[in-house]
């Protein structure tokens, strides 16, 4: 699972709503997989991210800041969590990640109406 994906996922456990983000990530196995750098794609993704710890957001003109884009590229697309868990911050419910694939399935009782 890439960290870009982690930023787009939220717990859908019943009653949790927007407090289901961000899921707490515990990684037990991580792999760095090189991915071809595409500055246009990375620049497009920046506005879609919800950067919880950065109150101001990215600096103006980030689309042309290659150093910044390369850093974001590495973090978002090249860090691959192979084994671990995602945890709902509100309910504590765990979603396993195995072979790089998160399993987000819940039973009917656990999900929103």
């Amino acid at each position, binding site marked *: *699972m*890439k960290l*870009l*994906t982690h*930023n*787009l*996922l*939220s*717990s*859908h456990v019943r009653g949790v709503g*927007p407090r*289901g*983000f961000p899921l707490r990530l515990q990684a037990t196995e991580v792999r760095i997989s090189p*991915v*071809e750098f*595409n500055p*246009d*794609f990375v620049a*497009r993704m920046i506005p*879609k991210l*919800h950067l919880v710890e950065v109150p101001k957001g990215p600096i103006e003109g980030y689309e042309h800041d290659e150093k910044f884009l390369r850093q974001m590229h590495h973090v978002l*697309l090249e860090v691959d969590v192979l084994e671990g868990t995602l945890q709902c911050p509100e309910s504590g419910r765990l979603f396993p990640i*195995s*072979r*790089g*694939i*998160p*399993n*987000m*399935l*819940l*039973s*009917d*009782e656990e*999900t*929103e109406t």
Partner: protein
Amino acid sequence: MALSCSLNRYLLLMAQEHLEFRLPEIKSLLSLFGGQFISSQETYGKSPFWILSIPSEDIARNLMKRTVCAKSIFELWGHGKSPEELYNSLKNYPVEKMVPFLHSDSTYKIKIHTFNKTLTQEEKVKRIDALAFLPFEGKVNLKKPQHIFSILEDYGLDPNCIPENPHNIYFGRWIADGQRELIESYSVKKRHFIGNTSMDAGLSFIMANHGKVKENDIVFDPFVGTGGLLIASAHFGAYVYGTDIDYNTVHGLGKASRKNQKWRGPDENIRANLRQYGLEKYYLDVLVSDASKPSWRKGTYFDAIITDPPYGIRESTRRTGSQKEIPKGMEKCPESHVPVSLSYHLSDMFFDLLNFAAETLVLGGRLVYWLPVYTPEYTEEMVPWHPCLKLISNCEQKLSSHTSRRLITMEKVKKFEALK
């Protein structure tokens, strides 16, 4: 004498398959490249010859870099219902537009294609010679000419009734061929990882084109299966996400779908499929997830949602449910790591899908999906609708005498506002 207005007119030679899907594909691609579909022809029906007005040759070339429905495009210099009409039409084509391709430093050749009839070599040569009145000054080069011109003769569509004379004759400068070779190079027969319902390669590219997929888009398939639809989008430069409720399919485990093969090998999963075609860099992630209970944070992330939902015929339609809803005698499915499986009423699924698309597509983004139909009862009112999504096209593919499926394309035209 009619003034032949030949400004920017092109002739598209279409492939004769997936007839209903062709016009929406061309329209979608033209709008993707800033063109607009303009034609003086009223209907196209089954004909492979389409005359369009396209603002520039660049747009025409971009169109051909994407289409799998069109074989070739020509800059149309003349046409008519008889040789005389054709020659008159050519005489009316502005000479200044011909000259750049005919001057003495250039090389060319003239080809002749006949549709639904075979001509002898002698007959072909006669027709080419009849064009000697055109101001060709360059040298003929049959091997590697700079410019290729074509005469196309249309003898209709009925192989049992071939007319003496053609219905239409066209003459034009060949510009480019379409992408029909992708159908063979991406054939499911050669793909490492397939499922029971893997999409035919040609249709998967048509779907990506109906979806107006472009470079750097994010495309999502909520019923991803073995990822065939993602491959087409990745080929056009989009980054791809997929989810599926079936754990084994997403992980590439379990029984193989190939004849003579028992279990899936280690190289059979969605990521491997993309790797097979050199498209691994476009793989974002796949997740095990119930499409009716998505896990995406609120927001608009997807430029296109392109999917083939389960119909309940070959793949079972499932959704997670609660303990109390299990009918007596129904087992849990240990393989799929789903607590319980329920049959998911088809119309609920489309309601969920349209709602999901309205919420998560960017404005202008497209939803492209297959709708199964019981033909004797089908009416247009049955096509699901949503206040935020505009219906763009509805193309039928017959499956059997009573069933068909329709490729529905919708575009998000209004921001989604949740009911308060």
